[in-house]
């Protein structure tokens, strides 16, 4: 079991409030991603759950038991660090076995478990090597091995892929997701990369300035963002925000339209007129950055190739059903 609940969790460092009261329910076996800009408190929240920091207020329940006074090792969680944090003087085997050794398991059982974990992660040929003799991806797998071998109630991942190159990151992303589904163990994953969040999560927690802005499934967040922050943070390229007369015509002080929901047409077809200032041709998509006069710069995404170049006049029209409306305080107006 690995059910985690946060109840009014607060954390301050002196006069600075990092976490301003977080409430969250994480169901057993789910993959939850904490995402937000740097400094939003996502890593602190993870460390509070891990027990590496003490809470200032509130309760953290793991399987119904409040663990705020329980030391990290006794919480039954394991953590994968951004820097991998492998023990440099120990072999891969020693690294993976360390937690089991500390728990006082018999040698034969430790060996059996270490070898099983190594096999799962394709680390068997490297068991006797030292961390410095491994590549970044392999080190990351050792760190994951160290986490899974203890059969924890939940995994905590602290931006584990941010030190890898882009190609390896995509591959490890898949591996981590697959492993989590296979083990069916609760996972909490911290990242600042919203693409990682969207692709890996069962549920996403969007954090901003120490507050949970929204908690929901990736598509929920994409389709029904609670406020301007979530709307702008989830989705790539960013949602276009328009205020003023054009917004008022749609019945709200501010409206948002995602780039993929802006129809690009030849100039003079109605909609918002503009001039292409940059066109990015990816083959599969075309991203247009359009100077739309009073509306500001708008981003439009066209699926497939669209042969437009800077200076071309276009007109953009939003799909009426896909317009997001926000009130003065930035909260979404749901119809």
């Amino acid at each position, binding site marked *: 079991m690995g059910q985690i609940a946060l109840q009014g969790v607060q954390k301050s460092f002196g006069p600075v409030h990092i976490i301003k009261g977080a409430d969250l329910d994480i169901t057993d076996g789910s993959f939850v991603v904490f995402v937000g800009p740097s400094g939003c408190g996502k890593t602190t929240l993870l460390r509070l759950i*891990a027990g590496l920091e003490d809470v200032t207020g509130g309760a953290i329940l793991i399987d119904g038991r409040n663990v705020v006074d329980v030391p990290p*090792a006794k919480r039954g969680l*394991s953590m994968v660090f951004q*820097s991998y944090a492998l023990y440099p003087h120990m072999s891969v085997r020693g690294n993976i076995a360390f937690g089991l050794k500390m728990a006082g398991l018999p040698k034969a059982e430790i060996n059996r478990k270490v070898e099983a974990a190594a096999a799962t992660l394709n680390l068997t040929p490297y068991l006797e090597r030292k961390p410095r003799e491994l590549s970044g991806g392999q080190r990351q797998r050792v760190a994951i091995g160290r986490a899974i071998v203890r059969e924890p109630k939940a995994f905590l991942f602290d931006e584990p892929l941010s030190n890898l190159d882009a190609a390896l990151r995509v591959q490890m992303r898949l591996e981590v997701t697959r492993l989590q589904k296979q083990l069916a163990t609760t996972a909490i994953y911290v990242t600042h990369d919203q693409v990682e969040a969207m692709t890996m999560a069962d549920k996403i927690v969007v954090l901003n300035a120490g507050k949970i802005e929204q908690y929901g499934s990736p598509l929920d967040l994409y389709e029904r963002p609670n406020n301007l922050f979530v709307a702008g943070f989830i989705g790539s390229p960013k949602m276009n925000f328009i205020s003023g007369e054009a917004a008022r015509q749609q019945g709200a002080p501010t409206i948002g339209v995602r780039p993929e929901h802006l129809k690009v047409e030849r100039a003079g077809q109605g909609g918002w007129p503009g001039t292409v200032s940059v066109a990015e041709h990816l083959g599969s998509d075309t991203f247009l950055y359009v100077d739309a006069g009073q509306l500001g710069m708008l981003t439009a995404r066209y699926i497939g190739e669209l042969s437009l170049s800077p200076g071309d006049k276009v007109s953009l029209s939003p799909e009426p059903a896909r317009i997001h409306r926000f009130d003065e305080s930035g909260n979404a107006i749901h119809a």
Partner: protein
Amino acid sequence: MARAVTTNRVVISTAAAWLCGFLIFFPILWMVLASFKTELEAFAIPPSFLFFHWTTENYATVQERSDYLLHALNSIIIAGGSTIIAMLIAIPAAWSMAFSPTKRTKDLLLWMLSTKMMPPVGVLVPIYLIYRDLGLLDTRVGLTFILCLGNLPIVVWMLFTYFKEIPKDILEAARMDGATIGRELIYVLTPMAVPGLASTLLLNLILAWNEAFWTLNLSTLQAAPLTVFIASYSSPEGLFWAKLSAASTLAIAPILVLGWFSQRQLVRGLTFGAVK
């Protein structure tokens, strides 16, 4: 842009490095050569380089005139003792400053270092008087104590920089893995810290071995280490170059051998934090 390394460049820089090395090494070589000359040849002009009458008579005289072994033993006790005591004090001090720093940690470190900026001669008289009154003049305990105090700031600084290099994440990983403080110390921290401890220990040993100011001023015979033994050859009776050289060679031999075998640790110790 990577520079093309031509053969010429390699030859020139190699030659330059050897030349620099030779220049630095030359005084020591000259001292060793002089120790095998007769007193007359030792200050002959022009000096003879290798073709002179080789003799070991200076070494015999030196051992006869003064007890080399006693001074060597004193050096070992004073340098070794002061190093061990300094390490025992500095390890916990550097540890706490590196892993649980307070607002004043930086000031404290700077203050400790600033004591090394003061010329020792500035406190010679008070220290001398205190030592006289406490009966510590010309005692091994007294010298061990003063060298330990003198080197402590450097030892704390070196260890502090070294401990700072140990990533906090690793300690946290050990905590997550269920290691108690004691086991964390035995299985994780100590193995990681050993190279740093070793190089600090070596450097401190060498500094203490070579220290001449306090040892010359606070000891005469009983507790006198090898530095005093060397200095005794520049005496009112005149300068005995060959004997002085023989004495110096004998004095630096042990530390030279130690340095030779621990080059790697020493270089590591002296380039702390410079390279990852």
